[in-house]
């Protein structure tokens, strides 16, 4: 399978990428690691006229401890997340979710920014951002703005990013020593999650769901139940409340709802045992 023809431009800075996006408008797409975009282009589900390659902006690849949060550059690869000592100490949930993505070859290329900008409800990292109340930073022609994870995922493959913005950074509150769990149910090792759960068990627990709707979701009913002292069983029973799980060849919505309840219970049990 061969992508439709396109013009290829390499950006040497974020500002240049923003300018190129402004110039080409909706015809242009950013290319980072290419592991969401290129498969779509090969299937001709995406046919951008211009690809703006930001894959060489190495200064956007970092994991840094900063005061009360960890800052992750938009071009940091999944491989660098799973092996980051900073994340291992302060946000092990993100390292675990990154480790569960695809396979080693995919993790050598795919980036956190590319995955988030793709806005796929079946991706793992969005659930982590929702559970941890993370912030996404985007740079456009008018400078930088911070977007709360809750406001970032707007619909199926739709995010709050404007056509001329580059996702430059993700900021995750430090969760040093906070119990957590990442659960992912797949039929085959390298598959997308049929359902996944990202959990942080702190004062106000966070629960993010993978593949339980047209966009990445928080299990708000579970969070509220935990906040008011519900048991693990009572809270987990609410895992599919308000969700709208998709039907596909892997699972019916009812099966996904069941899986969500089971996986939230397992996540709560695992976090409690940590």
């Amino acid at each position, binding site marked *: 399978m061969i992508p*439709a023809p396109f013009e290829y431009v390499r950006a040497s800075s974020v500002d240049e990428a923003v300018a190129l996006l402004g110039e080409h408008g909706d015809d242009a797409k950013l290319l980072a690691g290419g592991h969401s975009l290129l498969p779509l282009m090969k299937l001709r589900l995406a046919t951008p006229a211009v690809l703006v390659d930001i894959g060489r902006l190495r200064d956007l690849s970092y994991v840094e401890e900063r005061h009360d949060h960890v800052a992750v550059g938009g071009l940091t690869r999944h491989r660098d997340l799973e092996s980051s000592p900073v994340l291992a100490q302060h946000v092990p949930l993100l390292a675990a979710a990154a480790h569960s993505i695809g396979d080693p070859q995919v993790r050598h290329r795919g980036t956190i920014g590319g995955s988030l900008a793709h806005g796929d409800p079946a991706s793992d990292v969005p659930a982590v951002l929702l559970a941890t109340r993370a912030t996404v930073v985007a740079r456009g022609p008018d400078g930088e703005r911070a977007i709360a994870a809750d406001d970032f995922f707007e619909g199926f493959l739709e995010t709050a990013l404007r056509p001329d913005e580059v996702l430059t950074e993700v900021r995750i509150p430090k969760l040093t020593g906070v119990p957590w769990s990442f659960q992912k149910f797949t039929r085959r090792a390298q598959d997308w999650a049929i359902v996944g759960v990202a959990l942080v068990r702190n004062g106000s627990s966070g629960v993010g769901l993978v593949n339980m709707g047209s966009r990445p979701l928080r299990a708000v009913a579970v969070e509220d139940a935990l906040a008011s002292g519900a048991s693990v069983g009572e809270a987990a029973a609410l895992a599919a409340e308000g969700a709208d799980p998709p039907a596909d060849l892997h699972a019916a919505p009812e099966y996904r709802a069941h899986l969500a309840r089971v996986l939230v219970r397992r996540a709560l049990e695992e976090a409690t045992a940590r």
Partner: protein
Amino acid sequence: MHVSVTVNGGRHDDEVEPRLLLVHYLREVRGLTATNIGCDTSSCGACTVLLDGESVKSCTVLAVQADGSTITTVEGLAPGAPEAAELHPVQQAFRENHGLQCGYCTPGMVMAAVSLLRENGAPTEAEVREGLDGNLCRCTGYHNIVKAVLAASRMPGATEVPA
């Protein structure tokens, strides 16, 4: 679009269409046909090569993305390749442990195994199985492939890739 790459130790400058995939560049422009195309959807791993020393699925990388990089295919893996008759330790281990049947997945399996051992020089059996989860073998030969990679991990030079 101009690309300048080092493939199996040799420097090459080529004009390519931006949409040319790395696997097609290797097979059709460079004539290196050991790298197979299996699923063509970044699932099966048959097209795995090393890009700057790390495994990638070359059906999901554009040749222009590899500009300036070093690429190793299975043809360039053994010391002194392609002229030398000697096998790379991972190739040797696959032969000794019967880590293949039809051989279609083998070039990708070998490259994925080299990359795995470069990241984890002494993997457990579980780590080998997990580390190869991006490579499918339809002869169901996983048992001997895992044995081969474990054997290779105990051989000197298993993580070495000719420059």
